């Protein structure tokens, strides 16, 4: 329902009532049917075949944080979409990457972006990074009913903390449980393999360029072992979405910049298919 369909054309009283700066609170009071998780599902037998997004990885470096995702959505054994985008800016200083039920996840990101923007417009200041991470937590918890029926959404949230002057990463579980990750994190079906790669390659003193290569390597390894994660598609020029957040704000790498990193990684892998080797001791 939309504002001026009311008979008088006036702003409804709820719009003019002083109260919360949260758009979600307003929505749940005024138009609860628009909330993504707020639908009763009929009982279903077994898994529903719907598109799922897969692997998201993040890593921090001294000047910020990088967040990247592959481009594949799968529906059972079928590739539902090979160029889906799963990493989005949440606002100027944060980004969110999503794994899980693609349709719900994209809707949830849209609402999350609006939640942050709405707060900023009403209050005149941005939420703290912790505040943003908590709001995302609440949204995922709101989706718990759907998650129990197999429609889970599990995001990874990364941002630049303006107060503490550092990049931070938060991971979530389906119940909205939130935990801060130090250094690196991964979520989605290929996350097991991506995390292995991140663990061996991550260092505290990475430069921004090295951090970008690191996440591309991790996604490459995830795609290597997980059929639901898409590797870089050089023929179709479909590369992972790679984003960086520093004190200058959110930035998404252009196709040309991505292609450069991906090709460098790919060329090395032609010689060493398993990727760079870590020292044994």
């Amino acid at each position, binding site marked *: *329902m939309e504002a*001026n369909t009311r008979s008088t*054309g*006036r*702003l409804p009283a709820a719009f003019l009532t002083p109260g919360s700066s949260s758009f979600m609170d307003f929505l749940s009071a005024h138009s609860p049917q628009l909330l993504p998780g707020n639908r009763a599902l009929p009982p279903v037998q077994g898994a529903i075949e719907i598109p799922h997004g897969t692997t998201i990885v993040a890593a921090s470096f001294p000047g910020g944080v990088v967040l990247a995702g592959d481009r594949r959505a799968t529906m059972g054994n079928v590739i539902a979409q090979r160029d889906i985008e799963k990493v989005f800016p949440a606002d100027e200083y944060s980004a969110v990457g999503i794994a899980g039920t693609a349709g719900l996840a994209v809707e949830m990101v849209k609402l999350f972006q*609006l939640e942050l*923007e*709405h707060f900023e*417009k*009403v209050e005149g200041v941005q939420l703290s990074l912790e505040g943003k991470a908590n709001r995302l937590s609440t949204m995922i918890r709101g989706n718990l009913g759907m998650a129990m029926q197999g429609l889970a959404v599990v995001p990874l949230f990364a941002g630049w903390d303006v107060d503490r002057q550092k990049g931070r990463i938060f991971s979530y579980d389906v119940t909205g449980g939130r935990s801060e990750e130090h250094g690196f994190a991964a979520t989605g079906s290929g996350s097991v393999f991506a995390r292995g790669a991140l663990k061996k390659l991550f260092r505290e003193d990475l430069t921004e360029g090295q951090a970008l290569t690191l996440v591309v390597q991790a996604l490459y390894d995830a795609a290597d072992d997980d059929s639901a994660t898409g590797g870089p598609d050089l023929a179709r020029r479909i590369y992972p979405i790679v984003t960086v957040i520093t004190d200058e704000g959110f930035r998404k790498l252009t196709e040309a910049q991505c292609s450069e990193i991906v090709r460098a990684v790919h060329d090395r892998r032609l010689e060493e298919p398993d990727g760079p080797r870590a020292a044994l001791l």
Partner: protein
Amino acid sequence: MSTPFYVSPQQAMADRAEYARKGIARGRSVVVLQYTDGVVFVAENPSRALHKVSEIYDRIAFAAVGKYNEFENLRIGGVRYADLRGYTYDRDDVTARGLANVYAQTLGGIFSSAAEKPYEVELIVAEVGAGPEDDQIYRLPHDGSIVDEHGSVAIGGNADQISNYLDQRHRDGMTLSEALKLAVESLTRDNNGGERTLTAEQLEVAVLDRTRPQQRKFKRLLGRQLSRLLEEGTPAAGAEPGTEPETAPEEGGEASDES
């Protein structure tokens, strides 16, 4: 037991209008001008916390004079309206025209309802388009009418006088600095023809800048960036000795405040 006196409807509405107008006239003015890259809002407002000019949506901004709690309520209502509409449909479907209509209905309803006190506010809703000819500026007086404005508009205490001044001097294709200086000149003229000086600290300035790469075109101009724009070209024109010359040496480290 007192018997209520008969008051003619004309008289009742005239009284309400008079009441609202008096409330509005007490406040300082806000001026809104088109310039080549967008729309600039200039308000005389020493407060950094209570804004008279704010962002509503990607291309839409709001300016108001009058009673703070009343226009703040309307502002938040407008933000909720815009965000809900953009969420329900698409970001492109949120327009200044739609918002101005809702505001007009709201103000009109309040003005003519005997149960409510009329709002002592006057609003401007402006939207920046792809080019100067697509810019829209709507002025909404206290009684719920809408005036479609072009070029320049003033609301608040001295609105008529300031509007006249602006009408005579505003032209299409002004740069931001020119438009800003004209706006400040118009605000510094007071009722009896005298002039005051206004420094950057006493001004609240914001733009809807169509050249901004971000989706959200609203930006506040603060601190050094604002003083620099007010300084720009003044020595050459030699017109305004009133603006502060001592801010000039700060121009060196300017690059950082562009975001």
